[in-house]
């Protein structure tokens, strides 16, 4: 094997950047499922009434940038630590100094009840959840989304069937996707069955 007598000199990997696919997987599998808890956390501690969506995006951005060098061992504490920093920075930036200071932010307990990275529980309620989310879309919007996602029709076909312009269908689908995603990730599932 060592034909030239040298020690094994495999050059150390110099890839400072994470593989994009790893980041993508990590973000969708580990970060996004935390969104409902994250939103709740942000709402609870949002002293200066920043827009929650804006705070959430800021958390995602920092998490993403920080994970580029190395994925965290444990995503949940990592994301919530970033969330806390985002909140603190906002308070500083807006020069809002709460009278009681920030001790509660430090004392926040992050419940670690989420399944581990390689596990996912598909409860029977997942389907009901999807249906309910769909159900809460505006009627025309829902109709278009169902034709696209379930029947897999093109926008043109949907436009014909709904007697709408393609541009209107496009708007329905774009709104539908944005609202659906906000419900699926941003809201807590029902705590009914397990």
């Amino acid at each position, binding site marked *: 094997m060592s034909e030239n007598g040298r020690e094994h000199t495999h050059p150390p990997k110099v890839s400072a950047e994470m593989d994009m696919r790893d980041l*993508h997987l990590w*973000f*969708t599998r580990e970060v*996004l499922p935390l969104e409902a808890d994250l939103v709740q956390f942000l709402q609870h501690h949002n002293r200066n009434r920043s*827009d929650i*969506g*804006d705070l*959430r*995006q800021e958390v*995602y*951005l920092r998490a*993403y*940038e920080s994970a580029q060098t190395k994925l965290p061992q444990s995503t949940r504490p990592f994301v919530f630590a970033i969330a806390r920093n985002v909140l603190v920075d906002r308070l500083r930036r807006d020069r809002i100094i709460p009278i009681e200071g920030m001790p509660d932010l430090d004392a926040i307990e992050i419940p670690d009840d989420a399944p581990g990275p*390689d*596990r*996912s*529980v*598909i*409860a*029977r309620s*997942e*389907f*009901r959840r*999807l*249906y309910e989310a*769909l159900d809460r879309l505006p009627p025309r919007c829902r109709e278009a*989304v*169902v034709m696209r*996602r*379930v*029947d*897999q*029709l*093109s*926008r043109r076909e949907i436009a014909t069937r709904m007697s709408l312009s393609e541009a209107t269908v*496009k708007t329905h*689908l*774009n*709104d539908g*996707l*944005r609202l*659906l*995603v*906000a419900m*699926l*990730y941003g809201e807590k599932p029902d705590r009914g*069955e*397990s």
Partner: protein
Amino acid sequence: MSSSEDMKPALTPAEQIDAQAAAWFNDRNDGTADQAQFDAWLAQSPNNLLAYWRMEAGWDRAGLLAAVRPPNHNRPGERDRRPWGLWLGRIAAIAAVVGIGIAAAYEFSGDKFTTYTTTIGGHRVVMLADGSQIELNTDTTVRVNATGKNRRVELVRGEAYFSVRHDEHRPFVVDAGDQRLVDLGTKFLLRRDAKEVRVGLFEGSVRLETPGLLASSPLAVLMAGDVAVATSSRILITRGAKRELDAEAGWRTGRLIFDHVTLAEAASEFNRYNGVKLVIADAGVGSRKFSSAFPTNGIEAFVRVAQKSLGLHVERRNGEILISN
């Protein structure tokens, strides 16, 4: 026409990014996006990329809906013409068409099942006419109907390893209690006992569903390395469990492989294969963990390990081996 537009509340900056991401995702999904412009948009800010990933993941998730659509939505011949970039969506869509087609076909087919059984300690390979194989583990019964249009198997009890030859026109459907597996070209392990149904995927993919409850049935597409455990109330899926799977399939080569399992679990495994039953006296002993491998009939070797290595007390009496502290 434009009145409804005026009614819309203004979007926050974050919602605007989400709206852009949704629009890009939909355009690309519809094959009408300009790649250079999309790249330019992505390059503006990582926020855009993350919002895009989020839309994509949400759409993927909603793909489960496609897999349980009611039959009257089914429009064969019109499916899958779209350039989905989403494998999940594609699999779910194909599975939906396949699964529903079959469910309908069952009702009209004759009930020509052949039963294959193994006794305790048995091991047998059943070759089907289509080239598929079913390898039965100990104390197992399967019923097979692979004639005509159907390829349908019922795992009545026990455990079997399936090597399925994929046939788009004759899907391979396996029922185990309340769970139904629809093969998408695959090798998998299926085990059924009183409490649960367990599926482990070695190759390919299968769709897991509950028959008869189209609208509310749970569903998952299992890929190689996935293990799903379904009980009456839920399905737990573990991804990337290749190592555990290899251990679980040890019986195919006549071995029981224990990787950090409790004595109680090991004992109940041995009891599946042997007439002589192991009884663990108390929970304290039963919860001790160990790792080792034995022949499936190596109950004596196991007893020696319990005695010598773990220092436990062994007592034999009429067909039972009692292990205690």
